[in-house]
């Protein structure tokens, strides 16, 4: 406990944008195969440092087969609401779940260069206390740390629906399930919320047998992956509305609400429309009657390609689907970045008018059957995937791995992990930085990135940017 609020807690998104910039990035490394160790890489972002843009510290796990994926902080700017009662927590711990093993690692990154493992929660404890498995998204919120899971009970995670559980934000003890009334929700992926407006939105990927050994083409073509998002009364823990985008909108993944808490809208990325292989972004909002609405506001077309150049899975389609696997919204709610992991592109949309996004910039890098090189001449394997924006919106970082078995399906002849950065000018220009290129150690893949002091997909704010 501090005597003052942590200096990285900011009342509003605007104050977070004006705060000192990040000095380090924390990037998840996962083993190339299930028999290798995962870990956390600390990357130096201090301007003028001799080791700028290099991995300056790594912490490897003693276990194997965890498959680190998404992760988050123990505390964020939402602590500045008197309602939370947590004003004096430190932003100090990263909670990193293994989505294959259901083991949860807590890293202490108070001194980034001396980051270390603080606690390990064994899978058995997760199973016993929650009946859920395969923990995924982390957000710190009312009552503690919320963790979404992709699986229910049983060996293959299909015994009962997956959901969210809550952990104590100081002791990291698992408290128990979140849901009082889940309604139609029977799959899970991401979730986020608007704390003052007291709503939460959750999304759907698929059940563990649908992703653990790679995408199941029959399930995809018969539209069996998730295609709905769910709106919740956050504190009453009740599903108040389920919105089905339509069964062809397969894999509704990342939920990005506007950061300014006065706004009642956000975005959701859909990996693939099975009728035409397009990628899609839906804008969702609450209308004047309090009902949630949504509209498809961005579509990204597939690229025709000679089947000879395509992986087995795509040969029959003679095309490269965009595969929208991650999206991220800048803190001023102006730019939405959309990773097209299949095409090998990172798109930047101006979403000042959330119902009419405009493509403002685009970077090509990697991609199926295109393999665009980095401006420094080096390879970028796979395609742009997990994306993170600096709080001030001027730097956009991304890595390339999606999920081990899916990497192998879509990019069967590639391996490796890279993290790159693009600069965003005051005029909105969006270009790769030729000098920033992090190559991850042999045998590891690179996944989600967290920035020291918070970033654009972690912090929730309780005061508007006025």
């Amino acid at each position, binding site marked *: 406990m501090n*005597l003052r609020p942590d200096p990285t807690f900011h*009342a509003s998104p605007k104050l977070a944008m004006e705060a000192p910039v990040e000095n380090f990035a924390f990037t998840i490394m996962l083993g190339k195969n299930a028999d290798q160790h995962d870990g956390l890489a600390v990357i130096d972002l201090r301007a003028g440092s001799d080791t700028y843009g290099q991995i300056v510290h790594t912490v490897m796990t003693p276990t194997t087969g965890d498959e680190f994926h998404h992760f988050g902080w123990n505390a964020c700017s939402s602590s*500045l609401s008197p*309602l939370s*009662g947590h*004003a*004096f927590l430190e932003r100090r711990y990263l909670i990193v779940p293994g989505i294959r093993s259901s083991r949860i690692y807590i890293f202490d990154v108070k001194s980034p260069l001396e980051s270390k493992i603080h606690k390990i929660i064994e899978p058995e404890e997760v199973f016993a206390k929650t009946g859920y498995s395969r923990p995924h998204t982390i957000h710190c919120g009312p009552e503690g740390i919320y963790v979404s899971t992709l699986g229910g009970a049983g060996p293959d995670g299909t015994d009962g629906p997956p959901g969210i559980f809550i952990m104590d934000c100081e002791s990291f003890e698992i408290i128990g399930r979140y849901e009082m009334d889940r309604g139609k929700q029977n799959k899970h992926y991401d979730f986020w919320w608007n704390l003052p407006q007291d709503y939460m939105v959750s999304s759907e990927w698929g059940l563990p047998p649908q992703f653990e050994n790679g995408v199941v083409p029959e399930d995809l073509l018969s539209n069996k992956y998730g295609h709905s998002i769910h709106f919740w009364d956050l504190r009453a823990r009740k599903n108040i509305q389920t919105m089905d985008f339509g069964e062809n909108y397969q894999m509704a993944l990342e939920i990005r609400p506007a950061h300014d*808490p*006065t706004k009642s809208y956000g975005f959701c990325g859909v990996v693939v429309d099975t009728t035409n292989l397009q990628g899609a972004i839906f804008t969702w909002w609450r209308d004047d009657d309090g009902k949630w609405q949504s509209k498809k506001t961005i579509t990204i077309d597939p690229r025709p390609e000679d089947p000879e150049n395509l992986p087995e899975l795509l040969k029959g389609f003679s095309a490269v689907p965009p595969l929208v696997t991650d999206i991220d919204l800048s803190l001023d709610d102006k730019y939405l970045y959309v990773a097209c992991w299949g095409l090998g592109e990172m798109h930047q949309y101006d979403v000042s008018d959330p119902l009419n996004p405009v493509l403002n910039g685009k970077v090509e890098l990697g991609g199926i059957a295109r393999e665009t090189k980095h401006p420094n001449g080096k390879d970028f394997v796979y395609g742009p995937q997990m994306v993170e924006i600096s709080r001030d919106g001027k730097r956009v970082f991304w890595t390339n791995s999606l999920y081990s078995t899916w990497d192998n399906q879509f990019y069967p002849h590639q391996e490796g992990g890279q993290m790159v950065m693009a600069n965003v000018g005051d005029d909105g220009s969006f270009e790769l930085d030729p000098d920033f290129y992090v190559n991850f150690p042999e045998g590891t893949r690179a996944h989600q990135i967290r920035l020291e002091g918070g970033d654009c997909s972690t912090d929730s704010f309780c005061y508007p940017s006025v």
Partner: protein
Amino acid sequence: MEDVSLAALWWAVIFSGFYHGINPGMGWPLAVSAALMERRPWAMAKALGMLALGHFLAMIGILLPFSLMIFLVERETEIRFGAGLIVVTMGVYLLINRKHPKILARIHPARLALWSFLAAMAHGAGLMLVPIYLGICGLLEPGNVAASGHAAAQSLMSNDILTALTVATVHTLAMTVAGSLSAVIVYHWLGLKFISRSWFNLDTAWAVSLILVGMFGMWSAYSGH
């Protein structure tokens, strides 16, 4: 001499109100947030009003049982000593258990009166007033109930209840003045940055305050105040 003591106790009621009011943890930033969220200053007044209502009810909820007790039970000294002991115990408990009560996080953000009531209860804000209140009663009506006649006893009870209401009102007014000033100054001049800058961890000071006030109550029970 007794006038001076009485004045000191009333000042304690007022100062504890300022102390509660100025602490962001008791809610004034929620009034700033409400004004910004709804984009009209009236929302701030409404939020402050709800916070005050919850706080007042928490105060009166604690003080009234004590005012009834000192009327109904003859052992006034023992009650005052016991009350002091309860307050000390609450202080020690808060000193040891630093965990924030989770139930507070389940309240809908718009239900500020309920939140304010439960937050004051959970942190023993009403208890802090008990020894001061009993001290005031003792000074206003020296001697205990048993010594008075039946009619006098009834007027004593209504006096004690009136005193409880006055203590709770004065305290809540002081709290609301301090909280409102903080909220208005931050909203109009200092900006949101001031919320994180002005927030100090008072958990320890708060617990120690309870212990000190409780010890005062125990001491004053026997010293005749």
